[in-house]
């Protein structure tokens, strides 16, 4: 019985943690209070359920116990402050309202990704509150000390409470911009998983993306982001050797690509394109879809990057555009564009792309200097090994 009961607690927690937390934050207006209350409700369940019965509606049981615990704490705090025998009731929802709340997970996601929080805070909070990561896991993921990360989370939660960040899906006129903000946070989590070869983190980003897409089925950009992540993820087994060395797209063993992920990505992309308007994530996904075709249609990719430059210009997209132009029209045309980019002097991919084009133009000394610069700037060991190898083969030939 005891094992069954704790298994029941664990199952409800695993399946419904985010929904319960969202409902409690909504009801209590305070992240930290909601988290503590949910923890307390779970430990009460672990103590009580083995001795009695697992309740008919465990979800409602946990929410009610959590709410009552939080209200007790609020009353105690008020009593200590006001020194009155009967302090006023804290203003929160009734039990009935709380149980009757719909799915508040979208409100939770939008609150965690509010633009008044800095980017690190948005990422950490989304991973903790929505994905259920521990502070220790998040600290490991972003290579920061755990106390600093915990401090960052506390500060963000208090700012949400104290600065009047409303726990809700933003109003219509703010929605497009704020949704892009949410999708950016999810994509940053994914790219972190991509650059550190962390498959679990990529899966978590995919889960988050799919959750937003399921909750906002009429937003093509949400489907576009999931398609983009699936198409990138599909190639992850092929883009590194078992020894951890980089394999370029043209050298990849295509039998290692995940055909199921490609198919799923293509289906989602089709759905996103049927809306008729293509935002940045849909355009990126179309580009990723063209990359998994054989032969790769670089002329179309060039055109898509031009379109991206007109909706959301960044130096990194300029660089990708230049590389696509080099593939479509030859290294000379690409190099001219790369040399016109400003603001990426410290980005190793700018220098490695330049080096590659210079090598193809047989300007070896300049190519060597550019590989050297890229090698100095690259951080990941795999990138550094790749660039060192390129530099050596240039000197040997």
């Amino acid at each position, binding site marked *: 019985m005891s094992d069954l009961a704790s298994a029941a607690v664990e199952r409800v927690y695993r399946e419904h943690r985010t929904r319960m937390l969202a409902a409690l934050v909504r009801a209590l207006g305070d992240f930290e209070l909601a988290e503590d209350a949910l923890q307390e409700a779970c430990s009460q369940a672990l103590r009580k359920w083995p001795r009695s019965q697992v309740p008919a509606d465990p979800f409602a049981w946990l929410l009610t116990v959590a709410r009552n615990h939080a209200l007790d704490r609020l009353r105690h705090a008020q009593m200590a*402050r006001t020194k009155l025998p009967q302090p006023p009731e804290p203003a929160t929802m009734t039990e009935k309202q709380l149980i009757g709340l719909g799915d508040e997970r979208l409100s939770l996601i939008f609150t965690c990704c509010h633009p*008044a929080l800095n980017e690190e805070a948005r990422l950490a909070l989304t991973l903790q509150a929505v994905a259920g990561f521990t502070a220790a896991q998040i600290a490991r993921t972003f290579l920061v000390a755990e106390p600093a990360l915990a401090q960052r989370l506390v500060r963000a939660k208090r700012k949400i409470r104290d*600065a*009047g*960040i409303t726990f809700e899906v*933003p109003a219509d006129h703010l929605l497009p911009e704020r949704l892009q903000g949410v999708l950016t946070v999810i994509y940053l989590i994914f790219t972190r998983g991509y650059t550190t070869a962390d498959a679990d983190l990529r899966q978590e980003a995919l889960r988050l993306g799919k959750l937003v897409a399921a909750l906002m089925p009429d937003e093509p950009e949400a489907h576009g982001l999931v398609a983009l992540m699936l198409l990138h993820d599909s190639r992850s087994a092929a883009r590194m050797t078992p020894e951890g060395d980089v394999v370029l797209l043209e050298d990849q063993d295509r039998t290692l690509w995940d055909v199921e992920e490609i198919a799923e990505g293509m289906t989602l992309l089709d759905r996103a394109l049927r809306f008729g308007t293509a935002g940045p994530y849909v355009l990126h996904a179309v580009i990723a879809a063209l990359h998994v075709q054989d032969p790769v249609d670089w002329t179309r990719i060039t055109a898509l990057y031009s379109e991206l430059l007109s909706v959301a210009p960044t130096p990194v997209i300029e660089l990708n555009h230049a590389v696509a132009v080099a593939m479509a029209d030859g290294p000379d045309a690409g190099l001219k564009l790369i040399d016109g980019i400003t603001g990426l002097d410290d980005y190793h991919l700018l220098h490695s792309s330049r080096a590659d084009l210079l090598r193809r133009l047989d300007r070896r000394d300049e190519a060597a200097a550019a590989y050297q610069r890229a090698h100095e700037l690259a951080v990941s060991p795999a990138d550094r090994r790749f660039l060192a190898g390129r530099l050596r083969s240039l000197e040997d030939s």
Partner: protein
Amino acid sequence: MHYMFLIYNCEDRPAHGDPRFEEILKRVNAFADECRNRGVFVAGDPLKPVSTATTVRVKEGKAVLTDGPFAETHEHLGGYYLLNCRDLDEALELAEMVPQAQFGATIEVRPVDHIPGLNHGVA
């Protein structure tokens, strides 16, 4: 919730007689009207230049005066609005509309704190 908009870096506003003066005046008045129409306006004023500031510190029960502002920075507080907004989103939306921001001013948005037992100037 009450929000204080602290307007920094708007020292060199055009003086009376400057052709831009009327234009800016019109926009600042329009902003205050927008705030009143929304029912959020509590207060808002420009401050005289930082050269008029006197800073007071109390040391051993005695006032020590300094001729000048508190902080030796280039970004000085030049004015404020106090607005009663629904939430931070409304406050940030209004902060973006502050006309001074179009002329290089920076707006710091800070919620007003409520301390139990304190007789607040604002409700």
